């Protein structure tokens, strides 16, 4: 069985047409994810909520029963899917976040929290775009530490603390 030259050309054109989108997709820049970390000290010292935590104060007060919430650190990092980004947090904690994939409105990622040298927690999860995961519990100064981890595929994140005024103790 032989193919005529016209049929062969048509076949090549059709295959090229099908292959081009895939090739273009493979060449596309990996999707970027911005990770926002707010480190908060929560305590029962009746000092109220730090004004820099205004965007998330209602959430914190709704989730936990502390009388004091103070922002002790704010970090942001942008990374490509598949690449890990590391943050040094107050209290000797280190946080590694590796976005793995973007599936619709969800961002799949791996999060590892270290307490100095010791891995405290490793988790795989899918976080909604602009959603937050809160990791809390470790003791910090006169209270406890609450780490709010947010991820976004866009430019802004609605629940982050005021970065310009945030500092690290």
């Amino acid at each position, binding site marked *: 069985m032989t193919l005529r030259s016209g049929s062969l050309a048509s076949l090549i054109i059709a295959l090229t047409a099908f292959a081009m989108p895939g090739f273009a997709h493979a060449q596309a820049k990996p999707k970027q994810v911005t990770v926002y970390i707010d480190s908060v000290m929560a305590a029962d010292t009746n000092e109220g909520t730090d004004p820099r935590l205004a965007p998330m104060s209602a*959430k914190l007060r*709704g*989730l936990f029963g502390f009388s004091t919430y103070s922002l002790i650190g704010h970090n942001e990092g942008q990374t490509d899917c*598949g*690449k*890990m*980004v*590391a*943050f*040094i947090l107050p209290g000797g904690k*280190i946080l*590694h976040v*590796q976005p793995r994939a973007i599936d619709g409105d*969800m961002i799949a990622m*791996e999060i590892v*929290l*270290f307490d*100095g*040298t*010791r*891995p*405290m*927690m*490793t*988790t*795989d*999860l*899918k*976080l*909604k775009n602009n*959603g*937050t*995961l*809160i*990791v*809390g*519990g*470790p*003791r910090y100064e006169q209270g406890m530490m609450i780490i709010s981890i947010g991820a976004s595929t866009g430019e802004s994140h609605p629940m982050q603390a005021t970065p310009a005024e945030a500092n690290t103790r």
Partner: protein
Amino acid sequence: MAECGEISMMLGAFEDSELEPNEMQEVAFHLARCESCTGILGDYSTLGRNLRSIAPEPKLAGFSSAVVARVERLPQPVLTRIERWLWRQAHSVGSGIAWSGAVAAVAVATIILMTPYAEQFANRGPHSTTSIAETGHEAATAANQVAQATASEPTMADNDSHADISRLESENHSVAVWSEPRRGTTVIWLPDQP
């Protein structure tokens, strides 16, 4: 600060958590400042994950029963076979007696425990009706409160929990996870261990 050359030698072991604590700390701190090593670690992680995903798992369904059956088929001395047969007979007789005893004990316990309720059920009167009515009223009140609470909450959908955790590993045995759909947050709580 350690050089990238030294750190890169330890990245594989770091990914597998096989380093000594001081080495873990050294690598973790280096990674927090070095994009190059962070990228290499990401590659290790991706490679390991991909290898794990393609590694075939042998099918072990029926393996143990096949081994036991094969052992059973091995030739045994006559005395051993007689001994086994006697053991099986004794076991079946013994287990039959044990089962009968267990069933009888459960039946007796059921009768003892259910008798007061059976009497109460038989003597059910106007008081029971009142308590049911009160319970219904309480349930309606509770439902009303829930409805009011729901109405006062933010408008986020109830199933919108924002995070779907597929794996969580921690040496902390007191770790707790809960979802707050109305606040769009999932919480992982790791209390310090004493």
